Structures are given as C-alpha cells and as structure tokens.
C-alpha cells in the first residue's frame, strides 16, 4: 500500500525560507547601528496612482517572504530577477514564481537616502508604525517604469491570447497595485528583526508554513487539500470544499486547509475579520468537522491575476504542506479580463505565452502540489440539493449561486436562506457589520485597515 500513499511535498525551491531574528539583543544591536548611521526608512503604504487611497502595504510581502510563504523568494527582486519573472515567470535559480516582489520608494526618498550615503551594499532598517520591523540588505538599486511593470506583469490580449480577454486598466486592482509602485527599487534580502504581534482575530489564524507542516504531522494529515478564499463562505463554497476533498490517495484528503488572503481588497468584498471567522464557523457549527478543517491566512494585497494568482496560491500552499489545491471557475479573478477557466487551462495544459508550455507540475522548477480542478455548484430544485454541475443534468432548472446575489441580500438586510448561506455564517457577517457599520469593504474600512494593519509592533527594549 505504501507506494500508493502521497508524500507531503517539499517546500518550493527545496527548503523553507525563514528570515526572522528572534534574539532581541542581536536585533537591538542591528537597530542601534542603523540608527547611528541614519540608515532608517519608514514603510509607507502604496497609494492609488490617481485616487490616493491605500492599495498595498509592502509589510505584508515582507512577512510572507520572511516566514516562508513565498519560498524560495528571499527579498525584493534584483533587476535581472525581475526581468526573469516577467519573461519566464521563473526566478534566476530556475524555480517558478509568477509576480514581481519589490521594495519600491519614491525618488524624493531615494535622494534623502543618498544624502546619508546609503546605497548598494548597505543595510537599511525598515520601520513599521514608527517601530523597528525588518532590515533590507541592499544589493542593487534601479529604476522602473510602473506603467510598463503593470502591463508586463499581467500581459495583454495580444501577448497572451490564450487566456487574456481584455486589456488591463485601472478597474483591475492588481494592475493598479503595480501601476502605483514608486519608481526606485531597492533590491535585496529581507530579515524581520522584531516579530509583529497579531491582533484579534488574526492571531488565532496565523500559521506560518513550518508551523503548518508540524500541525499536519500532529493531526496525521498525510494528504491535505487547500482552499483559496477571499470571501465569506456560502454553501456553494462549502460544497466545493467537501467535494474536492474526496480526492486524495487511497482515501479522501485527510485535511482541508482554508487559506484566506488578507490585505487590501476591492470594494464590495467582505472585511478580512469576517472572512476568517466565517470560515472558522463552518467547522465550529459542525458543517465540516474541525478534525478535518483548519483556517489560516497569508498576508498579501491580492493581485486578482487568475492563472498567475493560482501559481502563487500553489506555491504558498505547497510551502504549507498541502498535497492538493482546489481550483474553481474564475479563480482569484475580477471582471472579464481573463477566460473563466484560465487557471484550469494553466494547470491542465499550460499557457505558453506566460512561459508554461506544459502544466506547472510538469516543468523543471515547477510545483509538486496537485491541482483539483472543479466546475461550479448550483441549486437544483429537481435534485433538491446543492448539485455539482458536472453531475446534475437538470440544466434548465438549475438556480445559480452568485456572490453578488448574496451580497444583494445582505445589503438589503434580508437573511440569505440556509440553503445558500448557513445562519451561523451570516451571524458572523452581522457581528463585523455592527463593528464597522457596513457589511462590506468600503473606503472607510480601507483607511481603517491601513491605519491599524493586522499587527502591532512590540518595543525592542
């Protein structure tokens, strides 16, 4: 039998990146030195290039790099690495990676650093909320054109005709993030020197890759399937999780790992706090046993890049120890920029124009995590159940679930029927609605998020 069992995949790149200094004395020495020479930079949010509202905070990327979610990436990319990612979606060491990861600053801030004599080869202390957070060992400083970066990151209908349907523009939140980058890039490795403390409710769901692998071991999860989310779960999501988890090796997957993406989101999405607690409620209320279901998150200001985002999701969840990843229609998508099944095309056939002439599991430097591509679920009044569209043939009678249908109900204060949203899950939405005065992400929530972030920084002294 043993040969039929799936093994937990190795981290992407062969080892988990962990760049966190836990020795406070050592950290204090670094801080003192950087402060003495003036090598200090206060992290600023990335603001929308037109509207000035926060669209990203690079601290989230630093956390995801240093705790190993993005292994084998170790820091802000050099110009050669950036070029490699944009042309081949591969790091210089040959491992696949979909997105530029960059530490960007304005020309004015660069001039200030230059005045202090800070340049390549120097160590820069990064402060968050006015307190020491991380260091960046600067290897290279170069300039980018943010508009070109945004276009090349996502592609165009002409350059990527297999899956890109519309030209990306400022209605696409991911394109806006890259378009809003500052032009000077400081490339080099990050190291966290002062571990942030997560606020409630984030503290209950913070499970970095090494810890996650240990938990899988303790729970005896040989196989685990990842569920990507940026939404509170409706019953369609719940059925996706339950049904996709029937895959496995000689038995269904032992575990379902819900990994929410936490960061700036588009208007109309649900607040991060509600997303995490609503997913947790699925197991607390017993719809999926907590023995088989665990909720976690990754810090990342979502790029909504459908197939590209699915690659990042594959990397993150492989690093966390998952053997499988479920992918549905319109995976991590917004608008009509991509083919509905672009992610599934990538994982089944590859997308040559993005550098994948074969699926990402079949190329050198690729992933080991197995895709579980799923179609949609609908309510069938004939079957009298939430049905899998690949099975149910009552096409004319189907009643499709849509996130916007449920948002419409919620906004009007109409409780969604239990067949489409569990009452306990709705209660979580209402809990956070009371706190924020609004059930969804709005400008006020985005400003609140940027002010508060998910963490506090302790004093180093």
């Amino acid at each position, binding site marked *: 039998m043993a040969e039929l069992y799936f093994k937990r995949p190795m981290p992407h790149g062969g080892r988990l990146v962990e760049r966190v200094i836990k020795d406070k004395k050592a950290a204090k020495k670094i801080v003192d030195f950087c402060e003495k020479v003036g090598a200090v930079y206060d992290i600023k949010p990335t603001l929308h290039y037109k509207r000035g509202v926060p669209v990203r905070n690079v601290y989230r990327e630093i956390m995801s790099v240093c705790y190993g979610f993005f292994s084998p990436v170790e820091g802000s990319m050099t110009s050669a690495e950036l070029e490699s990612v944009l042309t081949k979606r591969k790091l210089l060491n040959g491992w696949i990676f979909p997105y530029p990861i960059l530490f960007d600053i304005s020309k004015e801030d660069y001039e200030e650093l230059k005045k202090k004599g800070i340049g390549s080869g120097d160590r820069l202390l990064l402060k968050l909320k006015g307190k020491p957070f991380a260091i960046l060992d600067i290897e290279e400083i170069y300039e980018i054109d943010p508009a070109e970066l945004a276009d090349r990151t996502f592609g165009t209908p002409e350059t990527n005709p297999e899956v890109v349907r519309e030209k990306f523009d400022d209605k696409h939140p991911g394109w806006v993030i890259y378009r809003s980058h500052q032009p000077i890039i400081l490339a080099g490795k990050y190291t966290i020197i002062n571990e942030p403390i997560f606020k409630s409710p984030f503290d209950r769901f913070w499970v970095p890759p090494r810890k996650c692998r240990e938990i899988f071991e303790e729970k005896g999860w040989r196989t685990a399937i990842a569920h990507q989310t940026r939404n509170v779960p409706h019953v369609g999501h719940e059925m996706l999780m339950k049904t996709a988890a029937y895959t496995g090796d000689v038995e269904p997957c032992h575990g379902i790992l819900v990994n929410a993406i936490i960061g700036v989101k588009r208007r109309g999405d649900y607040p991060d706090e509600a997303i995490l607690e609503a997913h947790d409620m699925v197991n607390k209320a017993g719809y999926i046993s907590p023995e088989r279901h665990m909720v976690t998150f990754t810090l990342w200001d979502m790029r909504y890049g459908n197939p590209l985002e699915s690659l990042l999701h594959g990397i993150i969840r492989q690093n966390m120890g998952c053997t499988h990843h479920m992918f549905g229609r319109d995976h991590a998508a917004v608008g009509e920029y991509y083919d509905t099944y672009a992610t599934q095309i990538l994982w089944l056939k590859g997308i040559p124009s993005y550098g994948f002439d074969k699926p990402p599991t079949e190329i050198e430097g690729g992933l080991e995590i197995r895709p579980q591509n799923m179609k949609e679920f609908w309510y069938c009044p004939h079957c009298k159940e939430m049905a899998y569209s690949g099975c149910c043939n009552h096409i004319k009678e189907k009643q499709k679930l*849509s996130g916007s*249908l449920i948002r419409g109900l919620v906004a*009007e*204060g109409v409780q969604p029927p239990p*067949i*489409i949203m569990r009452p306990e899950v709705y209660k979580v939405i*209402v809990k956070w609605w009371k706190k924020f*005065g609004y059930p969804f992400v709005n400008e006020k929530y985005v400003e609140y998020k940027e002010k508060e972030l998910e963490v506090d920084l302790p004093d180093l002294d």
Partner: protein
Amino acid sequence: MAYILEVFLDESRLSKIKGTPVEEKIDAVFGGQLKLVRVEVGEEIKDGILKAFETARIDSRGCITDTPVAFKRALFEEIAKQKSLGEEVVKAVLDKIDEIKAAAAKESEHLPPPDIDTSDIE
C-alpha cells in the same frame, strides 16, 4: 437581449403586494426559501442603470446586480405603487435618479445592521 432585476421579498414587502397582480408573479427559489419578483428590462434601461451606478454589473445569470440598496428600495416601492413588473416601473425610478444617488452616497458610508443577537459569538 433582456436583462433582469431581481427584487427580494421579505414579510413586510409580501404584505404590500398582497392581492395585487404582482402577487401572482412571485417566484420562489432555492427550495422555496427565497421569494422574489423579476423585472425585465431592455438594453437602453440596462445601460442607464450601469451608467448611473458605478458598482452595478451584469452577473453570469444576466441579472443586473450590485445596485445600491436605495435603488432596490425605490424599485420595490414603485412596483407596489404601480402594481406592475413592467419596464415602466424602472423608468419611474430612473426619473428620481438624483434623489437615489444622494441616498446611495450615504449608504456607502453606513448601512444599519439587522437586529440579530450576536452576543454568543463576540
């Protein structure tokens, strides 16, 4: 092509259309758990709604969704007033667009939460 505006019905709304021709057109979906009526509109009205509200979109079912609550509320009131599900009820709502937009702007800041006890999960 026809586009659909769905109007959900709770107990209060059901009572306001009781005994009218609209009552006969109530549909129940999701195992009878959700009651609604549908208003069909053509291209011109659909374009007018999308132009009026930045958030509005057409979903995979051909429904016009993500319109402000103020718009949906006004639409139901017009349905109850005219006792009709014809395109004219939407036209009447769009005639009051400035008033609805002003209410919608306030809505993007605050929406009153439903009166549900959440103390057990605080």
